[in-house]
């Protein structure tokens, strides 16, 4: 083992000799610098290895041979080794990144650079207060010098502000140190901590307060952090990444070291400081357009979060290994991602975030950028995700509700601006520009990227003991990424094979309802994958994401714990987001999608944390501990709202139409017919728990859920009829149909659930069919506006047939399967006694006719347009799945027992059956229905009449589109003859009041409020050094009194 | 009142002829070049804001078309007619659709029926009543409508013509002697 003191020796020695080395050659001195950092990294790495993999205990190193307090001692433990390793490593990579500027600069920057890293090393290791002060000074002075080195007015100014602020902090630190020494007579931190009872005295409190405050100010808390932001904005990216990560890491660790000094009851205040910083920095970041400043805010926010988490875990006496894991995960995510992002900023060389769009032409860099963003937000499998999971769980356990809300709110704000940024890059219209990607700049980024990936995969496997099953979606995604160069058709086949294989793999564990959903998720996807073969070229990126999404839906089914469920849920969300984002105009809708999805995920997370007693998965149903008979109401509400967001229930629906409609056409059919059912699946599990466990007012809740369901149906259908865009129409229609399923599920009866599942399966069939047909049509006519189509029945008869069958099945007209759903729903509702809901759903189902007729009329009937003269039938890849679905619909229409019987057996374990079969007739307690006979009668009557018509009609002349009776005139333009635009103007006049965009208005209002709040809060940063100093002082004083200083 | 208007008009425009049909209705004749200026003056300064009609008469013997613009003043309840004579060989007149948008319809009709052109008037060449008319404009006196009808419309043989006056007398008072 190398003595850690070697680190200092190396640093100091080389720094002193640097001028000498530099005389030889800059290359030589630079190599020495690299070497030093490399060796130090190696030393730290070696210690880290020992701590992690062997039972090495922390080591104290005494410098002068005396024991403290007479000498300075250093500590090398797991935490220290970890941070040292990180800091030196980032120093090394940063040096590499800066190699060009180092080459052309004077010698001082190199020395300063070394000094700064050494300072941080010192801060981390030392256990002496005064020594800590010295190292703080070293690092901050060298930082200042680095900032101000390049003679640039802005940089000088920001460097100056930095110096003032850190000078102020040093004063506080020194004051605190003096007081403490005065009280305790020692400067050794460990000894001070052991005598920490002195803090209760007012002087003791003041001393500790000043000490901590100085560190906190160095950690740039809101609002006393204006100086830091200027630094982030103006300094070169190589340096700023060091300041933002390494420096902060050091100071943070100092804070961590001294935290035990804070009395237990004051810890929440410290956490409060952090959370304020976290929330407000994220809030203000929304308004930023300067990329570095935005990253700066994000860094400050993350540090704030770290402070909060550290204080809270200490407050809650969380097991040290766990708290270490949480803190280090957050720390690492920010550390790696932030450094990487600042480095990327150096390559882009653009300040405005919109100008980053040139990244779009560098797929490799874009992927890395995306991964860093995801890591910051806490998307699985990145470390932040796991940290968040554990953290929220602990907070929920200790009932710190406010903290959960604030942390998740801040995270959501952060996700908002980061995803907005990402989306604007992916979907921007900017032209390609030359972008220099020198190797010395790219290599550090790639190394960090790989590091992040390794850590991310390591965590679930090592810490959470994940086996391969929940990780399969990622595996699938990676496999397809490897084959991404192949043509689409081949990739579609590979995807189908993967999904088939996956299905076979998980088939043994499926049973009952999970079988139904497996059918929807996997078989449905399998068939729809045929349609994706119509994609041209290689179409990079689509299939990996799609397979990732489908397999994560499969993962939901076989999840064995809440964590696995949540993991799969988040994976599904993020892959779906990426798929939506692929749509041409999907920037805004995709952002809404991910925001609402993440909000839903956070609700789910907190709900699962509150309901920690249950294992939220199908498997978990069987293992409810007897002691836990109460399902907390909060948990129930949180979880149910999360799922309602997913199904797009009314009030939370505004993300739905846009993201369904603006996604690529074949993706939409996946989203609408399959992905939306995951919400239903989740809700089903929740309701099953509700059945098994008691909850206060559960009847009231399901009743409310029923109302939400029926209003979703009503408003979804009503909105659908006023859409001009076919995909918006279908999106609203999906919303309505899912409302029915929610309604049925909420009925909590045998028939209700049977009808819900029946509808879920049926919805898969018809919605996928209609959407694929429409996708085929759009691919041919090149527009989504229905009034721009017309008369396509002659050109695309097969698509017409599938839309026809689809709308009959959707509308519930006998004899097709839709009527089965309607019959089951009404019988279930009437049986349940939900009469008004039944009435309203009847109204909604009548309204559905309106939009369905509009759909088929304006596209396929009416006047063909001249520009569609040469339109051909859609590609067979679109048609094959449609016809498979038609076959399925026909089968279950002819023989409803094919589907209702198994569904009812699946539900039997939960509810007593109220339906019975007599031959083909299905009897409920209220009525009966024989789908088979209905089909025969209808078909018989229809055929007889058709034959009679053919016989009686005589000579028939087939005529063309203008051969119509046009009040003795003739039509001149198909466009004006086709009645399609604003089809239901009269309906709008009658019921338009119901479709005023109230919800959209509300959410827009929320958005505007947040944005303007951010805007006005931002005003406090005047850019003026004195003001910043004043803030720091005020901050200090105010906090002092808040925390109870006397 | 009317006198004043007339007085002002004569001062401003070279009016060649004034015909007072009624106390509140006068017709003035003026050269082609002044007509639209005068109409515009009447509309803007004398309160004749309403274009009652625009009509033409074919004076084939004089070789002219006479256009008559009748304007109405709502306050005074008076009408004034502006008569303009234009050459039959060059039947072109300035358009007044800029003053009254509805004038385009009158002008369109005049173009179709008399062949008087109003350059700049919207849709002036579109058919107004007649679809696909290929002959000379039918309202011109040199167009023989009977001949055209007989050539075109398959007249049913056996049609008899009576002088209405004589015929009615014979039918109603067969006993009376012709005077």
């Amino acid at each position, binding site marked *: 083992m190398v003595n850690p003191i070697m680190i200092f020796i190396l640093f100091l020695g080389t720094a002193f000799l640097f001028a000498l080395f530099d005389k030889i050659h800059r290359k030589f001195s630079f190599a020495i610098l690299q070497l030093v950092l490399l060796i130090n990294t190696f030393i730290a790495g070696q210690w880290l290895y020992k701590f992690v993999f062997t039972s090495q205990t922390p080591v104290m190193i005494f410098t002068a041979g005396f024991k403290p307090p007479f000498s300075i001692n250093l500590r090398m433990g797991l935490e220290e080794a970890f941070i040292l390793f990180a800091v030196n490593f980032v120093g090394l990579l940063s040096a590499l990144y800066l190699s060009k500027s180092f080459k052309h600069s004077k010698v001082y920057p190199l020395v300063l650079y070394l000094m700064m890293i050494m300072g941080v090393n010192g801060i981390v290791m030392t256990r002496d207060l005064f020594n800590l002060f010295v190292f703080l000074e070293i690092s901050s002075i060298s930082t200042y010098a680095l900032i101000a080195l390049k003679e640039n007015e802005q940089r000088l100014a920001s460097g100056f502000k930095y110096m003032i602020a850190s000078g102020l902090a040093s004063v506080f630190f020194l004051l605190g140190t003096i007081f403490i020494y005065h009280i305790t007579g020692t400067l050794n931190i460990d000894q001070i901590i052991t005598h920490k009872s002195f803090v209760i005295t007012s002087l003791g409190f003041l001393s500790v307060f000043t000490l901590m405050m100085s560190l906190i100010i160095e950690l740039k808390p809101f609002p006393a952090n204006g100086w830091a932001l200027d630094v982030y904005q103006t300094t070169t990216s190589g340096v700023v990444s060091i300041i933002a990560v390494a420096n902060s890491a050091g100071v943070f660790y100092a804070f961590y070291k001294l935290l035990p000094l804070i009395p237990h009851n004051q810890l929440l205040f410290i956490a409060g400081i952090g959370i304020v910083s976290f929330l407000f920095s994220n809030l203000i970041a929304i308004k930023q357009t300067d990329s570095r400043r935005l990253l700066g805010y994000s860094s400050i926010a993350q540090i704030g979060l770290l402070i909060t988490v550290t204080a809270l875990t200490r407050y809650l006496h969380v097991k040290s290994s766990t708290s270490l894991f949480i803190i280090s995960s957050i720390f690492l995510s920010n550390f790696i991602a932030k450094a990487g992002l600042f480095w990327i900023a150096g390559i882009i060389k653009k300040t405005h975030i919109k100008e980053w769009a040139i990244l779009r032409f560098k797929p490799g860099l874009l992927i890395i950028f995306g991964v860093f963003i995801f890591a910051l937000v806490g998307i699985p499998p990145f470390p932040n995700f796991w940290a968040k999971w554990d953290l929220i769980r602990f907070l929920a356990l200790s009932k710190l509700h406010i903290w959960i809300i604030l942390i998740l709110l801040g995270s959501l704000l952060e996700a908002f601006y980061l995803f907005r940024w990402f989306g604007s890059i992916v979907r921007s219209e900017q032209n390609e520009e030359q972008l220099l990607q020198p190797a010395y700049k790219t290599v550090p980024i790639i190394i960090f990227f790989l590091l992040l990936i390794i850590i991310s995969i390591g965590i679930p496997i090592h810490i959470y003991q994940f086996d391969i099953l929940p990780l399969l979606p990622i595996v699938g995604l990676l496999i397809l990424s490897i084959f991404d160069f192949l043509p689409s058709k081949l990739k579609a086949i590979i995807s189908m094979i993967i999904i088939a294989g996956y299905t076979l793999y998980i088939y043994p564990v499926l049973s009952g309802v999970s079988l139904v959903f497996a059918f929807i998720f996997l078989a449905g996807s399998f068939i729809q994958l045929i349609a994706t073969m119509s994609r041209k070229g290689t179409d990079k990126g689509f299939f990996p994401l799609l397979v990732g999404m489908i397999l994560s839906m499969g993962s939901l089914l076989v999840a064995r714990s809440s964590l696995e469920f949540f993991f799969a849920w988040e994976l599904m969300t993020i892959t779906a987001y990426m798929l939506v984002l692929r749509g041409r105009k999907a920037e805004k809708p995709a952002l809404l999608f991910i925001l609402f999805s993440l909000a839903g995920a956070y609700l789910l997370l907190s709900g699962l944390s509150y309901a920690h007693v249950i294992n939220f998965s199908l498997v978990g149903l069987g293992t409810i501990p007897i002691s836990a008979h109460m399902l907390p109401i909060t948990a129930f509400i949180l979880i149910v709202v999360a799922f309602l967001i997913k199904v797009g229930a009314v009030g939370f629906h505004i993300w739905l139409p846009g993201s369904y409609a603006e996604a690529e056409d074949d993706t939409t059919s996946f989203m609408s017919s399959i992905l939306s059912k995951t919400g239903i699946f989740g809700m089903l599990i929740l309701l099953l728990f509700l059945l098994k466990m008691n909850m206060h007012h559960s009847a009231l809740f399901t009743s409310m859920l029923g109302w939400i369901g029926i209003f979703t149906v009503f408003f979804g259908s009503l909105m659908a009829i006023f859409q001009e865009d076919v995909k918006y129409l279908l999106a609203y229609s999906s919303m309505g149909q899912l409302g029915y399923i929610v309604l049925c599920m909420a009925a909590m009866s045998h028939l209700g659930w049977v009808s819900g599942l029946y509808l879920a399966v049926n919805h898969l069939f018809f919605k996928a069919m209609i959407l694929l047909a429409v996708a085929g049509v759009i691919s041919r006519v090149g527009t989504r506006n229905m009034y721009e189509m017309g008369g396509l029945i002659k050109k695309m008869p097969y698509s017409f047939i599938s839309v026809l069958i689809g709308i009959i099945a959707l509308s519930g007209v006998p004899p097709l399967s839709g009527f089965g759903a309607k019959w089951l729903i009404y019988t279930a509702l009437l049986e349940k006694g939900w009469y008004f809901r039944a009435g309203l759903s009847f109204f909604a189902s009548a309204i559905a006719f309106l939009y369905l007729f509009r759909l088929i009329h304006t596209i396929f009937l009416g006047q063909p347009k001249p520009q569609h003269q040469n339109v051909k039938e859609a590609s067979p890849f679109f048609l094959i799945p449609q016809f498979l679905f038609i076959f399925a619909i026909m089968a279950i229409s002819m023989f409803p027992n094919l589907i209702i019987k198994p569904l009812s057996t699946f539900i039997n374990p939960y509810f007593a059956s109220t339906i019975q079969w007599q031959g083909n007739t299905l009897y409920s307690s209220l009525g009966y229905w024989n789908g088979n006979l209905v089909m025969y009668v209808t078909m018989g009557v229809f055929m007889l009449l058709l034959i009679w018509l053919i016989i009686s009609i005589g000579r028939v002349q087939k*005529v063309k589109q203008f*051969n119509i009776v046009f009040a003795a005139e003739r039509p001149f333009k198909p466009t004006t003859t086709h009645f399609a635009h604003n089809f239901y103007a009269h309906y709008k006049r009658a019921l338009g009041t119901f479709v005023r965009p109230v919800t959209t208005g509300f959410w827009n209002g929320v958005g505007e409020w947040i944005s303007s709040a951010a805007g006005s809060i931002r005003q406090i940063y005047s850019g003026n050094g004195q003001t910043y100093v004043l803030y720091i002082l005020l901050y200090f004083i105010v906090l002092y009194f808040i925390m109870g200083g006397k | 009142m009317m006198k004043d208007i007339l007085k002002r008009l004569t001062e401003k425009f070279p009016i060649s002829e004034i015909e007072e049909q009624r106390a509140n209705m006068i017709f003035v004749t003026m050269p082609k070049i002044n007509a639209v200026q005068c109409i515009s003056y009447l509309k803007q300064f004398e309160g004749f804001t309403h274009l009652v009609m625009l009509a033409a008469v074919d004076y084939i013997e004089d070789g002219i078309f006479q256009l008559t613009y009748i304007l109405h003043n709502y306050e005074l309840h008076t009408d004034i007619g502006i008569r303009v004579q234009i050459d039959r060989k060059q039947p072109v007149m300035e358009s007044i659709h800029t003053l009254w948008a509805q004038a385009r319809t009158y002008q369109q009709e005049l173009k179709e029926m008399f062949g008087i052109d109003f350059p700049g008037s919207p849709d002036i060449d579109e058919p107004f*009543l007649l*679809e696909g008319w290929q002959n000379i404009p039918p309202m011109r006196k040199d167009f023989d409508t*009977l001949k055209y*009808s007989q050539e075109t*419309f*398959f*007249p049913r043989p056996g049609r008899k013509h009576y002088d209405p006056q004589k015929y009615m007398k014979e039918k109603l008072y067969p006993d009376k002697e012709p005077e």
Partner: protein
Amino acid sequence: MKKDNRLLPNKDMPDFERDYFCDAHPETVKPLKGFIEKFLNWARANSLWILGFGTGCGAIELRPLMTARFDMFRYGMAPRPTPRQSCVFVIGGYASIKTLKRIVRSYEQIQAPKFVLALGSCTINGGMYFDSYNTINRIDHYIPVDAYVTGCMPRPEAIIAGLRKLQELIKQGKAEKANEYIENFEWYKANQKKVIKDWNMPDYNW
């Protein structure tokens, strides 16, 4: 459902409009034989649906037929708003060229068997408009007429009488002018095109 192969030339139509209109040549459909045709003719006679298209001043005389005073419904006659569903076309007096175009179009859109009743002198020989540059003289040169009602204008009683006469003709199987129109299609078309100068429709409006 015999498919015919004769096509209309439609040479007066611009090329781009050809795709919009059916260009099949109309064919005659012979009446059935014997009792069935008689029965059908009886039914046709007792269910005369009049196209509600007032083509001239005579249209005003048609309206009283609906009133209680004349009550054409008792004979099974009824006005019908679309040519597709009507069988009697009443030409209500003078027909200007512009109207003639619409008359031809509507007449061709009525499905066989179809009957035409022409009212007033104007339809017979031009009446008082005989010398007009814009009014045709004899409607039967353009579409076949089953019965005329004289007068200027005929009173509603006269129109009813005309319709009753038409009923008789139908019952006797003598109202087969629809086939006559097809048989003399070229002649009728030539006459129509002689007066309708801007022929912007297909030669037969299906």
